[in-house]
């Protein structure tokens, strides 16, 4: 007998692969902008990341004697590598990308049981691993050198940058967050540290030193709105994360503007926009309910602000996300939807009239 299909006999035209593709499409503008801004080396880095993730994942899956094709075809490994690549310094050496990608797909994803089973966001886990292990490579930023500008390296030069670690003189720069942190340690106040270094309009476009695809706040925002419009993500986690940074920044900068930066500075720097729209919306490692997702996002934002303001590292998005990933099961345990006909605790609503012996009547009448 042929297999009888259970209802429903209709389905929304969506697959995991399509979800991943849509996220990649949303990520494309910011990535292309990063390519333009930082030139050939950034393209190399991106390509190496994706390639390493594909090969690494294929290897482990084959080693586990599972079918390789469906795992690679779902596109989740590629997306992870892409997210990692856009959070790396654009002129980082090739082995940073390879190590990070392999760590992301093998250790933080497949070892946990594959797609859907990982506790921590693979891209962020890899980024944290790299930041702790290779602080120099991970904090060597370059000033923007768009295609056609004087400093833009040719393709051949770019190979030298990516694959043999050649440093280009005069290109090194500091990211805004790193610069401010350094200046603080030298006892220099915020207004002085920011002067000549911080232009909000440039930051909005992303025309500054920073990670490959994290700087273009507007493009990331557009990608996020596209995903919300396509109903791939909901607004809750992103908005909550932005709020989580904005609220303390507003309060503290109002109290002591000489020491605490304002919300615009925080919103437009580091990986916040990428984190808000592409990282905290990772379905696997965030809570199940929209309320839970709001709490999760808020926590990510708050922790990011705390780490940026008082922590040892200039940027805190990756750490904040990992900390909140660890809290996701707890959030899911406490934040559950109320079930129809029951109260919040799951106890059936009281019945006023006496119960008669007939069984409950069916659904449709």
């Amino acid at each position, binding site marked *: 007998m042929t297999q009888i299909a259970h*209802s*429903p006999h209709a389905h929304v035209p969506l697959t*995991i692969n399509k979800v991943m593709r849509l996220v990649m499409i949303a990520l494309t503008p910011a990535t292309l902008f990063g390519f333009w801004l930082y030139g050939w080396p950034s393209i190399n880095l991106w390509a190496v990341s994706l390639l390493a993730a594909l090969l690494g994942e294929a290897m482990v899956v084959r080693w586990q004697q599972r079918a390789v094709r469906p795992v690679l075809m779902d596109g989740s490994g590629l997306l992870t590598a892409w997210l990692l690549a856009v959070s790396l310094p654009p002129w980082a050496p090739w082995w940073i990308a390879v190590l990070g990608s392999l760590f992301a797909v093998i250790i933080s994803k497949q070892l946990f049981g594959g797609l859907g089973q990982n506790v921590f966001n693979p891209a962020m886990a890899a980024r944290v691993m790299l930041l702790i292990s290779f602080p120099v490579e991970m904090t060597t930023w370059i000033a923007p050198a768009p295609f056609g500008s004087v400093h833009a390296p040719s393709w051949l030069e770019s190979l030298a940058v990516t694959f043999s670690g050649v440093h280009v003189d005069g290109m090194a720069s500091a990211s805004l967050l790193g610069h401010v942190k350094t200046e603080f340690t030298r006892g220099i106040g915020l207004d002085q540290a920011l002067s000549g270094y911080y232009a909000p309009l440039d930051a909005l476009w992303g025309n500054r030193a920073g990670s490959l695809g994290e700087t273009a706040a507007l493009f990331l925002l557009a990608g996020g709105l596209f995903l919300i419009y396509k109903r791939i993500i909901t607004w809750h986690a992103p908005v909550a994360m932005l709020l989580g940074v904005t609220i303390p920044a507003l309060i503290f900068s109002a109290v002591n503007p000489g020491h605490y930066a304002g919300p615009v500075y925080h919103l437009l720097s580091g990986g916040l926009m990428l984190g808000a729209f592409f990282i905290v919306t990772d379905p696997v490692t965030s809570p199940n309910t929209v309320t839970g997702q709001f709490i999760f996002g808020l926590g990510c934002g708050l922790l990011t602000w705390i780490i940026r303001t008082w922590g040892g590292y200039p940027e805190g998005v990756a750490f904040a996300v990992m900390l909140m990933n660890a809290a996701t099961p707890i959030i899911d345990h406490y934040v559950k939807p109320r079930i129809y006909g029951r109260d919040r605790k799951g106890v059936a609503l009281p019945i006023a009239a006496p119960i008669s012996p007939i069984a409950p009547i069916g*659904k*449709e009448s």
Partner: protein
Amino acid sequence: MKLFKLRGGIHPAGRKELSAERAIRILPLPKRLFVPLQQHIGAPATPVVQVGDHVLKGQLIAASQGVVSAPVHAPTSGVIVALGEYPAPHPSGLTIPTITLDSDGCDRWIETVILNDPFELSSEEVSTRVGAAGIVGLGGATFPAAVKLSLSRKTGVHTLIMNGGECEPYLTCDDRIMRERAEQIVEGIQLIAYAVGARQVLIGIEDNKPEAIAAMRAAASGSAVQVVEIPSMYPMGSEKQLIQVLTGKEIPATGRPADIGILVHNVGTAFAVSEAIRYGKPLVSRLVTVSGGAIKEPCNLEVLIGTPAEELIEFAGGYAQAPARLVLGGPMMGQQITNPAVPVVKGTSGVLALTADEIGQAEASPCIRCSTCVRACPVGLLPLEMAAHIRVADLSGAVKLGLKDCISCGSCSYVCPAHIPLVHYFNYAKGDLAAQERGKLKQEATKKLADERIARMQRIGREREEAALRRKAAREAKEKAALAKTTLAPNEKAAPATEEVV
């Protein structure tokens, strides 16, 4: 009227345009009808006819049995040719006790009495007649209508809600009946309200049926019956959701609508009630939507109960292309059938021949915990978590998460981008739990039997020993007379405690 907010829900492609503008047509009289004895929730009916009997249309052929049951009537005049098994309109493909009737072509009714004023009857009499007419919930639940009526009268119902939602995609038969037979539906509604003593009557109709709303408003003007336009959403036509959107109340998890003073009936049921009470005609036909991408000319048909599904498809022009799946009911909760010869029964609202594109099924992939299912669930469950528990055979874990509150509407499966058969998991688990419950009862019974047997064996052994002792004593007393008749008679065995239930 103020409407209340619902949780979750989905907006599947309606596909109602395929058949919505097709007026109801009457399917030509089929040669042979297969009328199952159980077309309702409860005990099956018992046949009251013999093979070879000639019956008239509307004549009782199987009587209701027990409190929750419904009688079955001859759908046309003709000769009973078999009382036996026939494939059931059910995904299992199993057979079901069925009366087979060969039409004589005359379609002659039994004598029916037309009432000029049905409201002269007492309210008890109305529900008795509804029961005698074999009317069940025609929305698909097939719960005997009279049982609901008398129960609601006893518990006291203030609000009667009529379900004109028809939220399942493709189906348009409620839409058509409301457009074409609104007057009679309103009369049926008034009869139901009269039978249960309801003070308020609301008809909920989804806003994707403006013509039906207009027709029903026109028919209901001047009466206490109030037509309410409700937003189109699946599963709006589910009893629980309809009550919630109209009244803001929820049925307690352990209760029934009557517990909050509400009774819900389908508009098609109201039409059948009017037919039964005013015209004295029992339920022998119903409206069925024949649709789907593989059907040449989708349509709405009035069909005699017991007509094989394939005759409906044939009347609709046959297949435009080979269907990937045949479904009875709507695509969201309807059931696949493999045999197109199964009969239309009282609960059949649609016969759908769907193409692979319409079904959109794909290989299941791992859950990415996107929680789209959580947002879609109208009940407030966590489908992804429940399925994960069931997958590793932790059914009690799933029950703790609310498995028993699941209404099997299929919204979660519909939206799942990983194509995980979530509602299949839930129905598997519900079936397994029910089977376990049955197994536990049986085990308790058999254990009792085993214990009884052991006790009996011990008693017999003891008696034998005592008898042997007595014999020995007797021999010693030099009595030579034979005493040997203490052997065990087989008919001493205890009869099983439980009778066989077929």
